[in-house]
């Protein structure tokens, strides 16, 4: 009898320890990743010419006579693709969330949610493949431009990738608005659309903002798809039909060829630190706004 109780207590304790370990490991991993990225790049940090780094468009990491690490064009690439992706994904994502949560009959809602989740599960290399083999010829054909691997292509692909995140978080935010608000507005004779934009959107504001920010985070951090879809030209784009190269694509493409512990290798890690900081900030802001709703 008491032997059995002892085992029970022991199992309980072990389970508790295991679960705690899982929780703690998440923190350990995040710090671990940051530590390793930082360690690989840090001894370049004091030697780096930051003016050149941030303001020059000249990215010649392997030049024979003078290497130049200017990431302005890469920043512009990331920025242009992300902005275009958000211009497409935010209206579509929020619109879809509003439709799914407020207008759609319950049965269709379930189907749509499954499909949207499916969309979120497509691996990014498959998206890149679509960019390469479907979007590329389509853009060439539709817009009569010489090359279809450009900002437009990358932006559309990234938009498709961020929409599911935006939809599912925005839909949660709308669903969290108490039903009594809808009841009240409808009973006063408001139409469903009036209820949405006068009551629900303001009430769910923070959650919707968080949805958008997490979508942005996804777009900034994405590598494989943009690597394949944006055409790989280090260049500040002047139109959506220009090819660009993003920060992430640069790291992915050059990491393999840069000799370990060379300056080139280290500067790629510095870019990693920059990206880490960017996405961390975006996620932090998103998280704080989500917390803002919960506390209300």
């Amino acid at each position, binding site marked *: 009898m008491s032997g059995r109780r002892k085992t029970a207590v022991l199992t309980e304790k072990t389970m508790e320890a295991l679960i705690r370990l899982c929780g703690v490991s998440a923190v350990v991993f995040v710090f671990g990743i940051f530590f390793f990225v930082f360690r690989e790049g840090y001894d370049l940090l004091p030697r780096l010419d930051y003016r050149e780094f941030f303001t020059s468009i000249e990215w010649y990491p392997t030049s024979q006579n003078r290497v130049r690490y200017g990431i302005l064009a890469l920043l512009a690439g990331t920025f242009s693709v992300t902005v275009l992706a958000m211009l497409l994904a935010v209206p579509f994502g929020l619109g879809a969330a509003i439709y799914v949560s407020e207008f759609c009959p319950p049965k269709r809602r379930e189907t749509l949610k499954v499909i949207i989740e499916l969309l979120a599960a497509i691996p990014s290399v498959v998206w890149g493949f679509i960019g390469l083999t479907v979007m590329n010829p389509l853009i060439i054909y539709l817009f009569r431009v010489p090359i279809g691997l450009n900002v437009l292509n990358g932006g559309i692909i990234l938009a498709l990738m961020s929409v599911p995140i935006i939809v599912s978080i925005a839909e949660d935010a709308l669903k969290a608005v108490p039903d009594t608000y809808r009841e009240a507005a*409808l009973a*006063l*004779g*408001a*139409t469903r659309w009036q209820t949405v934009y006068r009551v629900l959107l*303001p009430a769910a504001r923070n959650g919707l903002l968080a949805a958008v920010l997490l979508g942005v985070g996804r777009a900034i951090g994405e590598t494989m798809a943009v690597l394949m879809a944006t055409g790989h030209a280090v260049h500040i784009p002047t139109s959506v039909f220009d090819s660009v190269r993003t920060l992430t694509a640069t790291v992915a493409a050059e990491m393999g060829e840069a000799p370990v512990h060379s300056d080139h290798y280290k500067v790629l890690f510095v870019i990693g630190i920059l990206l880490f900081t960017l996405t961390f900030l975006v996620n932090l802001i998103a998280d704080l706004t989500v917390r803002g709703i919960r506390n209300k």
Partner: protein
Amino acid sequence: MSQERTPCIETADLNLWYGSFPALKKVGLQIAAGQITALIGPSGCGKTTLLRCFNRGNERFGNVSTTGEIRILGKNIYDPDVSLIELRKSVGMVFQRPNPLPLSVFDNVVFGLQIHNRRRDLSRSRQEEAVESALRDVFLWEDLKDRLHTRATALQLEQQQKLCIARLLPLKPEIILMDEPCSALDARGTRAIEDLMYSLAGRYTIVIVTHNMAQARRVSQECLFMLLGELVEHSPTRELFLNPRNPKTAEYIEGRYG
């Protein structure tokens, strides 16, 4: 008592199903204008459902089917030329839990006006007048006149419920439906809402659902007793409580008194 009043709400052979579950069965009733009518019955008998029929509030739920006739002020509300929006303007509803919108006190009161008028037809001064008059009617003006721009959801429950009544008034409703309006309030709040109902009766036709027999006796002139989706008895309140015609009514009100 015997004076003939025009019925304000009239139903004939009203049936309602949630899916295949019959929630209302052959309900036929006439509710007089300008009076307070109480609707009583055990939990789940269909009181809320019946109330929501009068402003077609059941249509939000996807699986509802209704047959029969509902006339409000002599007009069948399922006629194709009836606008749902106009119907809901003239039939206001107050809910069990006070549900002011997450806006300021002021914006709650003018919400109805704002959604039913174009912005340029709605001057600031007209809105201010509407707010003052509605809040005076529900005895909130003195308390809230300096706090019109605080969030309505931060008020006390009693004030919230009064505000929920006040926001109906600028739309000049004929009928106010109240679904257990005091069940979230304490004794003092209940008293206050009842006083408010007396003062609104006459100008508006009020239908109130309540679980509180004493409240039904205090506030209403007529009383409807429902059981399992059926209307069992409809009598003047005094009669229903002193001499119920139907034994089931007697059982219910006695059971309640212990």
